[in-house]
């Protein structure tokens, strides 16, 4: 356990060194003043403690030069911190022109990443080392915050607008991605990996199969295996005779719920329906599905969702396509 106690996070971006240097500077100043105050208090407390026989003499009740001094000196030091901090911040907010463009959409509770080349990732982001990467971000629901401690960077993803974050990874490796803005139930599970790859590996990855780390098996195939393995097909039959709804065509469509509401069957809905099936029961069906929480991993969930998305109902393609249209938020 003790071996796993780091005191400084890994530093793996061009800006991380600047942030750490500024941090060290402020830490040094803080330690100086904290020590100064502590030593003075301890010395005074001992030296001037109440003792029998010591004369009680009125000491000076003020000293103007001293007061001005301890206002001006801290202010001057603080201004150096401001200038340094501001310059680091401006660098953080100025993406170079040759940046690689990546799009990020936060939603409760996942990060969806899409590369310009068409490659998609969820809760992970593969980037090349040594090349600036610019993320354009938004959120589909509430505010999220894209946070990479190893890069010392963070930016909120705000619904209704784009925000931008850029970085340049300096070391290949796998780094934490956290959501740092509280976003509801699974805020603490809205985490992922930043995978920094050497340029050649990155190119290979980019050219590789769709699901990261899935090897030769596509996510759809893996999802189908899971679907059969977990016994989903017993109820969710393709012919509509099962105890659960037909899943083909559900993703992206409007699902009428037992409680009278309607939801858009997005990824979150599918995910929720597997992990917490009682939350939003489709109208006309009994709340009998057991939870698969703890039985399927996040990866497997995504494979299941991918598989469900791949299901094509022969006669209902048109309807599904219609349902997947972005409907206006208010009808």
């Amino acid at each position, binding site marked *: 356990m003790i071996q796993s106690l780091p005191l400084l996070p890994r530093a793996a971006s061009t800006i991380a060194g600047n942030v750490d240097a500024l941090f060290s500077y402020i830490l040094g100043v803080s330690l100086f003043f904290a020590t100064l105050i502590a030593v003075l208090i301890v010395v005074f407390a001992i030296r001037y403690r109440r003792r029998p026989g010591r004369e009680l003499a009125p000491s000076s009740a003020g000293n103007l030069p001293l007061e001005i001094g301890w206002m001006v000196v801290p202010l001057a030091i603080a201004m150096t911190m401001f200038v340094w901090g501001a310059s680091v911040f401006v660098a953080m907010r100025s993406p170079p022109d040759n940046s690689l*463009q990546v*799009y990020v959409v936060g939603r409760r509770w996942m990060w969806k990443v899409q590369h310009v080349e068409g490659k998609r990732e969820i809760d992970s982001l593969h980037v090349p080392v040594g090349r600036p990467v610019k993320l354009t971000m938004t959120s589909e629901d509430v505010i999220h915050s894209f946070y990479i401690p190893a890069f010392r960077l963070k930016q909120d993803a705000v619904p*209704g607008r*784009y925000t931008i974050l850029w970085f340049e990874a300096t070391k290949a490796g796998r780094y934490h991605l956290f959501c740092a803005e509280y976003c509801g139930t699974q805020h603490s599970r809205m985490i992922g990996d930043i995978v920094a790859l050497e340029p050649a590996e990155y190119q290979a990855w980019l050219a590789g199969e769709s699901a990261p780390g899935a090897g030769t098996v596509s996510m759809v195939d893996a999802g189908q295996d899971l679907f059969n393995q977990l016994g989903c097909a017993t109820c969710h039959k393709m012919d509509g005779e099962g105890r659960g709804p037909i899943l083909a065509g559900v993703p992206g469509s409007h699902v009428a719920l037992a409680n009278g*509401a309607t939801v*858009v069957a997005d990824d979150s809905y599918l995910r929720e329906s597997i992990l917490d099936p009682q939350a939003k029961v489709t109208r006309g069906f009994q709340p009998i599905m057991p939870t698969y929480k703890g039985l399927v991993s996040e990866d497997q969930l995504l494979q299941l969702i991918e598989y469900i998305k791949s299901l094509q109902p022969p006669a209902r393609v048109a309807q599904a396509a219609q349902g997947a249209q*972005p409907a206006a*938020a208010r009808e």
Partner: protein
Amino acid sequence: MTAHVTSPRTYVFVFVALIALTALTVTAAQIDLGWMNAVVALAIATLKAFLVVTFFMGLRFSSFVSRVWLLAAVAFVLLLLGGSLDDLFTRHTATYLPYEQMDGAVPGIGLDGLPTRPAH
């Protein structure tokens, strides 16, 4: 007891001025002055408020502290307004778009879902 009795005649004069300013602001609003319309409307409103505060509320007779607090309140509203508008005016780097218009606005971005909102 401090009683600064003002003559009712003064009050009536102030009242007439207030009504006249109301007529003026309604008239001025019909003329197209561009962005100046809002400025003129607010200027007249401020003048009216000044008349009410000074004469009806007797600020000219009230204590120095009262005046400081009133000014502080107005200054702090302007501070709140100024701080938030400063942010709004200088967001060069961010494009502000309603969510619905964002889909497809940037090549490569696909929003295959919608915010889950309580049914209105």
